[in-house]
């Protein structure tokens, strides 16, 4: 092969790669749109009356996740199945966002942490790399950390809305989450940076709990719940 023939072949390969990325970008854009819709829907829980509508919002969110699953199916077809990490950067951000949203819905429904397998099911993807388009563990953890920040905000707004019991439950949850994260040996990457924000969320919630307990409002809440 002459030099020019070699470069022509290489250019072909590069062009093909660009085409695939263009297709992926289109689907990712659609996913981002759906994610925004779910986020807008769920953000409503921070408002006073929003607390009452939590079950309804969760239900609606789950309907939107149906759209997500369809879009994921489309995304899977855009590239060779064994080259997930070649194109991973394109959907990493939106996937982390979707993990957060799924985790938020599950928390609002059951006040528990959604498992990796459960999120994968909600999003219509696999939990293991070997089985196909999967949820990378770091993306799962990033999404969970975003949930922590959201719950810190929810704790604050719960008090404002008059719900004095919820922050206490959030506190327990976040503290256990923090213990879990402390087990991890993270490298100095974006996950690590996001993890560094967790301590501020913990602190914020502790302050809310403190504000409630020195005023005896937490006991009031405990009594109210019996």
């Amino acid at each position, binding site marked *: *092969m*002459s*030099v*020019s023939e*070699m*470069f*022509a072949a*290489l*250019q072909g*390969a*590069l*062009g093909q790669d*660009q085409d695939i990325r263009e297709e992926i970008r289109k689907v990712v854009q659609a996913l981002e749109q759906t994610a925004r819709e779910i986020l807008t829907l769920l953000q409503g829980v921070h408002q006073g009356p929003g607390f009452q509508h939590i079950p309804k919002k969760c239900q609606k969110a789950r309907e939107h996740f149906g759209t997500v699953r369809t879009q994921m199916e489309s995304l899977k077809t855009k590239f060779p199945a*064994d*080259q*997930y*990490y*070649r194109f*991973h950067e394109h959907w990493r951000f939106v996937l982390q966002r979707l993990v957060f949203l799924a985790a938020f819905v*599950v928390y609002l429904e*059951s*006040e*528990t*942490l*959604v*498992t*990796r397998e*459960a999120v994968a*099911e*909600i999003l219509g993807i696999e939990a293991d*790399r070997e089985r196909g388009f999967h949820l990378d*563990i*770091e993306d799962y*953890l990033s999404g969970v950390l975003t949930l922590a920040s959201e719950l810190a905000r929810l704790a604050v707004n719960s008090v404002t809305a008059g719900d004095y*019991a919820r922050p*206490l*439950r*959030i*506190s*327990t*949850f976040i*503290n*256990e*989450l923090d*213990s*879990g*994260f402390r*087990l*991890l*040996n*993270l*490298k100095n990457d974006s996950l690590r940076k996001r993890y560094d924000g967790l301590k501020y969320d913990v602190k914020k919630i502790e302050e809310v709990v403190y504000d409630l307990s020195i005023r005896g409002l937490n006991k009031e809440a*405990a009594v109210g*719940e019996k």
Partner: protein
Amino acid sequence: MVYLIGSGGFRKRKHDNFPHGQRREEKENVNPPSALMTSFKSFQLELDTRHDKYERLVKLSRDITIESKRTIFLLHRFTSAPNGEEILNESEVKLDAVRRKIKQVAQELIGEDMYQFHRAISPGLQEYVEAVSFQYFIKTRSLISVEEINKQLIFTVEDREETTNMTSNSHDKQPHTWSLKVTPVDYLLGVADLTGELMRLCISSVGNGDIDTPFELSQFLRQIYDGFTFIGNTGPYEVSKKLYTLKQSLAKVENACYTLKVRGSEIPKHMLADVFSSKTELIDQEEGLP
């Protein structure tokens, strides 16, 4: 450290495995650990395993880089050495050693998605491409193809001793052959760096009284430059970035040819070296070499 853990309720629901957070604060160390903590322990293991593999690959990549660079330095001595054959043989020995390292890289990547670890090994592979294509040019005066490079990176189980050493993947079916494919981008980046070495070869060959090589190199580099121009911006940013340096290397070689053509007849051969050595000093200063 206070562990606030749910009151031992391992209720298994359809979508989650974690117990409710407690309403009253309790300070206690719970045996056994909660489902959440168990999960995170497994995450710890998974992340540690991944990071360890990445580190092993980084180390291999560094070794590959160093040995490839040494091969390149060796090959530069080919021009001035009377025993060119010896140098080529030695370079082949060195490159075989590099390929053995690449074999270890390929072994680590069995069953993995190569792209997950690509950043760890890319620098080494680029350096290897540079070295092997440099050797190929010296031998054949032509450019090695990426297919030719990858043909040499197909590895087989050679003897029983090697099979027993491969414990990391013992639970998988051990393949009889495995390979590493240099990607088009790594190939292009390696070839771009090669042009820098060829430029140095041009300057040093004149210093040795070889006035044919510069013209051969000029033609060869022009072909490569044309190739990169054809690719233009359709590749990733790192490829486009190399184009600038490549243009400079080509210009230096073309200027050397010009000087030879114009002044070659008027300067006695033994003084040609002096003309180009002062030029070489200038070039090295530009590139920031000591």
